């Protein structure tokens, strides 16, 4: 198997925590992994992405070739569209709906959503509201991961284990909150699709 994933967002939104969970789950599944990150200037509120490549064979390039990603996971809707040239024909676009408007010419949200809807395989999810409903507004990233989890090619149980491992050092409460958010995202997808 080979799953190429682009995780997209804005510097400061914590996309690397999603990447870390998927990475940990890939390792637990004995798969090869390459994860390219953005450090430096763009972390100050600029567009950021992580190229994640998971495979049962050795991975050579850190970067994903165009048109081959099976999943774009975006925590911000405009950022979801920025990486469309990498999306494969049958690939999935899973995005949060909450816009982060830190630029003057931020487009009309309706327009963005209608562009997202024109993509064949898309999931639009209000992860912030779901996270709030779960009583943990800060875990919307885990809601996103839950909603995107079926497209990662990794068993859900292993993703749960990975989330547990990643948040372990922050205490059992934090682990529980994040697992709940993960499941809420997963449930949203299962009910919808």
């Amino acid at each position, binding site marked *: 198997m080979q799953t190429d994933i682009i995780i997209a967002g804005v510097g400061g939104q914590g996309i690397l925590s999603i990447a870390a969970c998927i990475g940990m789950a890939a390792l637990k599944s004995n798969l090869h992994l390459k994860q390219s990150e953005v450090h430096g*200037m763009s972390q100050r509120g600029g567009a950021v992405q992580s190229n994640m490549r998971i495979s049962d064979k050795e991975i050579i390039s850190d*970067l994903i070739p165009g048109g081959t990603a099976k999943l774009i996971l975006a925590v911000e809707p405009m950022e979801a569209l920025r990486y469309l040239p*990498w999306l494969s024909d049958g690939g999935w676009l899973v995005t949060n709906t909450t816009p982060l408007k830190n630029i003057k010419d931020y487009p009309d949200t309706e327009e963005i959503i209608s562009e997202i809807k024109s993509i064949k395989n898309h999931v639009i999810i209000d992860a912030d509201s779901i996270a709030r409903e779960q009583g943990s507004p800060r875990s919307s990233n885990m809601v996103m991961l839950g909603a995107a989890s079926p497209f990662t090619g990794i068993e859900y149980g292993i993703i749960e284990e990975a989330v547990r491992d990643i948040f372990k050092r922050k205490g059992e409460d934090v682990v529980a909150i994040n697992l709940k958010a993960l499941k809420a995202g997963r449930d949203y997808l299962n009910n919808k699709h």
Partner: protein
Amino acid sequence: MDKLMLLGDEAIALAGMDAGMSGIYAYPGTPSTEIMEYVQHSGRSSEDNIFCQWSANEKTAFEAALGMSYSGKRSMACMKHVGLNVAADPFMNAAITGVNGGFLLVVADDPSMHSSQNEQDSRYYGKFAMIPVLEPVNQQEAYDMVFYGFDLSEKYKLPVMIRITTRLAHSRSAVRTASRLSQKEVNLPSDPVQYVLLPGIARKRYRGLLNSQTLLEGESGNSPWNSLVNGNDKSVGYIACGLAHNYLIEAYRGKQHANPVLKIGQYPLPAELVEKITGDCEKVLVLEEGYPIVEEMLRGFPGTGKKIMGRLDGTLPRDGELNPDIVAEALGMPFEKGPEIPSVVKNRPPSFCAGCGHIDMFNALLESIRNYGPGRVFSDIGCYTLGALPPFNAINSCVDMGASVTMAKGAADAGLHPSVCVIGDSTFTHSGITGLLDAVNDGSSITVLIGDNSTTGMTGGQKSSATGRIEDICAGVGVDPGHIKVINPLRKHHEENTRIISRELEYRGVSVVIARRECIQVTMRRKKEEKTS
């Protein structure tokens, strides 16, 4: 043997510790910062007593690492590509003094200028100094090359460069670690004048460096990092340097390539292997991440008659980072394309963090200087460079570390008044102090606005060299203490701050205004840590 998930930077850091490195010296700079940070945050550095503190700049870092090597121990100096410009003087001369304990220079280049003001290729520096350069293609090679590089450095008593680029520096993959080596004991150089580059000695040592070139080329010919894989299709051969080799393999999507491929990971170029592939093939396509240095060497002048393709003939773009698609297209291989980016998507450049003190500093400066008209603010390298973007449009230069002070001085000498520079505290201690001394000595009328957030902000909040001592340094350099002002850049102090800056702008002489408020990222991190502990 452990298997760990590491960034390229981290693989180099860990390998240094595993290979018996006694000290690492660096100044923060994307994409090299995480090398030092990994050593600092690992328990190993205190356990094994590995020196790991930030230096004031790349030159002091390089020289300190050279001194540790002089003492017989293994040492490492790390920097970003433009940092090597700062360290170029000791770098060029260290090739002539040679080294004693193994000495590795790790330089992280930034093709496509993700976080830099240029995309210069450090392999030119390696060639310029005539030292070996190693260029890993993945995290494992980065790890292994540190061991190999230390051995090579000790074998030839020369500094060895490891050149990486952003993609490898900031990409994570599994690394198998090797058995740890112990650190070396202090052992002074056997030749007491080895490091004394008086002309008579320097000439002798330089001839030694020249004589070693054939041997270094021989090392490249037998190097595990250089390999020629043959192929039946001799219509074109590929020479792939560093990460370009990954994209070449990727383009074949798991199939064996039909053409001969020479992978390059160690320089000077292995002449025999290059002659073999150029001799065997009708044409040669050179793929390299960075400047077309190998391509230029192959083309020669007036040319060897063989068709050489690459960045210079338009087969590949002349600038910017390579990627799998660019390489696939150059190879004539099929590649996929997803949907276009819809026009609704707007650029999202970086911006100041909410609550950043630089915002209030620029607001006060802009109001103070409004009546004088635009074009009088020289600036520098750091978060405050974002003052160039709207809505501020507040600065008129960003050239190199420290240049704001000296450019403001030159403009003042030309008659511009007021002439202002905006520089951060870390950049000021990196390379601003000497320029300020020039201005004081010459009585040049400049106003130095030091955005003191008490950290090295843009690279993520590393220790700044002179936190709490900026005004003492300015006074020590000779600035009149009556014209060293400290302001607190907060909105509620805007009017007072504007008044203070306005007054110093009028002053004919050197004045310094220190806008001091801790970086908001550092404040938030500290509060979070205090909460959890």
